[in-house]
């Protein structure tokens, strides 16, 4: 299978501090891959480097065989690479409906957009109930659903998710993870998931990377990592 996303020896810096050291990873088409690690391990920075919010200082980022290292963040949705940013970042004073419309900002196919709107409302019925409410008035879990739904409205080939379980109750996190799995299976959407909740992420994903202090320290099938003694001790609390 062809890799849809490939990072090769990527380094990134915040000022003089090196945040990513020689990160290499690949995601195959149709896979769910997760990056786990502690706070400050460089997981989110990896995602931000993929979308060009943080510039890679060395290395190469390839998406669908093409280098996207020098692309601006706003050029990626057109290529089918959509991100659900950390902290959700929905538009608080736009209504739920308008938030979703923004997700389809680059698309001109009104009929298809309408169909996708129906699709995300089926996935997240609560958003349909609240479609006239301001995004900022939703609860944390609903905002996360809105952020994911908004990204889905761009009809991505690949979805990047940054800590979707942050600040949510276990039950809502599980609900959201189930939907991510659904989307992956039904639409064949590739997912790269950054997550602190290693347990849930490893249950969801096919493969996983473990990051520590800005570098990838381990890479394996998710099922194998869940049985790994070191991982159990360090990340799963067993």
């Amino acid at each position, binding site marked *: 299978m062809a890799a849809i996303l490939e990072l090769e020896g990527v380094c990134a810096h915040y000022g003089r501090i090196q945040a990513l050291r020689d990160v290499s990873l690949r995601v195959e088409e149709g896979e769910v891959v997760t990056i786990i690690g502690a706070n400050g391990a460089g997981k989110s920075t990896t995602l931000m480097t993929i979308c060009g919010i943080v510039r890679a200082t060395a290395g190469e980022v390839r998406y669908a065989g093409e280098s996207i290292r020098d692309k601006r963040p706003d050029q990626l949705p057109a290529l089918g690479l959509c991100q659900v940013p950390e902290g959700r970042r929905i*538009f608080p004073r736009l209504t739920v409906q308008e938030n979703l419309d923004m*997700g389809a*900002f680059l698309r001109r196919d009104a009929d298809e957009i309408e169909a996708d709107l129906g699709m995300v409302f089926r996935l997240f019925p609560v958003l349909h109930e609240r479609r006239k409410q301001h995004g900022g008035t939703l609860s944390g879990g609903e905002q996360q659903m809105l952020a994911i739904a908004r990204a889905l409205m761009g009809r991505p080939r690949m979805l990047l998710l940054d800590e979707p379980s942050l600040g949510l109750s276990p039950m809502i996190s599980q609900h959201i993870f189930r939907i991510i799995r659904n989307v992956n299976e039904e639409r064949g959407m590739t997912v790269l998931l950054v997550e602190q909740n290693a347990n849930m992420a490893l249950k969801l994903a096919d493969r996983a990377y473990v990051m520590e202090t800005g570098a990838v320290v381990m890479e394996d099938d998710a099922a194998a990592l869940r049985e790994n003694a070191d991982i159990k001790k360090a990340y799963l609390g067993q």
Partner: protein
Amino acid sequence: MTRGSRKSWQYFGLGLAWFYLLLWPLLGIRDGELHFAATFAVWLRVAVGATICFVLYRLGKAGRLDGVLHPLAAARDAVGDAMSRAPRWMLLTPVIVFALAYPMLTNRYAQDVAINVLVYICLGLGLNVVVGLCGLLDLGYIAFYGVGAYTYALLSVHYSVPFWVCLPICAVFAAVAGCFIGYPTLRMRGDYLAIVTLGFGEIVRIVINNWMALTGGPNGILGIKSPGIYIPHFVDGSFSFEYLLLRKLEYLYYVILALAAFTIVAVHRINFSRIGRAFEAIREDETAAELMGVDTFRFKLLAYALGAVFGGLAGAFFAARMRFVSPESFTFIESAMVLAMVVLGGMGSIPGVILGALALVALPEAFREFELYRMLAFGGAMAVMMLVRPAGLWPAARMGKRSDDTE
């Protein structure tokens, strides 16, 4: 008296004492001597007024005024309800008829004030695109007003280009100026952007002030022509056009009324377009907008240029009406006034900005006797506004509530 109310009275007393301390150096130190009587007289009036307001406020809070307030609130709700159900044309028609008939009903002075209000409505709505929709704090907006005014002034004086031809040229020049200023500054966000736009606004004014050869410097430019129209003329069966310069105030009133109407319609269209939605997304969260595929830099530049266009149009009219321009008309205080109108009226709201312009231009005219205290009243009004109606006089539908105010 409950503990809460005693505490609020204490604060109120402290506030009055503090106000006296502020007021005294302002009024009490004159010609090297210290006066107390004048300050005390002014302070006493303010204190009495404030105490009455405060007593009413406390009574209202304690529920003693319910007998009066409840029917009032019910009446207000009923009116609001009827307004929201009535079709839009029913609300707009009386406004339009009044606006058209205005010069026939009023004298020169009132027309003059109305022209001022309309100019500021254009400016406010233009700035509203930048500040209210796109969320870019621009403290140098008046520069575009200046660019429009000087463009028309120069074209009119040197090449005698007619007003109507100049209008689009002024708009284009202002938009180009907007891009020139926006290109380097729009990489900044928030407070930094505000400071840099402030700087650029001043640069434009100072350039105008010092470029003697082109702009006449502080002397300004005299002899700008009024707008003219051709009116059909029938004499003994032969048909010709007569050129008429619109010097009279009521004609000028109709010119600016048309410009303001154009601005309102244009801003309304922008507001509800895909571009407007992108502006709002940038205001709400620039990074998220970028992740949705909005080219934020280009859209911010577009917002800046669009805002500048309306400033330029208003500027062209200003030059044509005064028939004189000088750098004094484009100082920072003007930018601040326009911004105050947008904030006071309600950011992002078209009727709000119109109300804001009306309040800040017409009210000072109505209270001319108290001109000395204008800035004092202005500051006080702003402070009260922010406490009572933080989203503005007529907030945009979406600006009213945020998740954090619902609790």
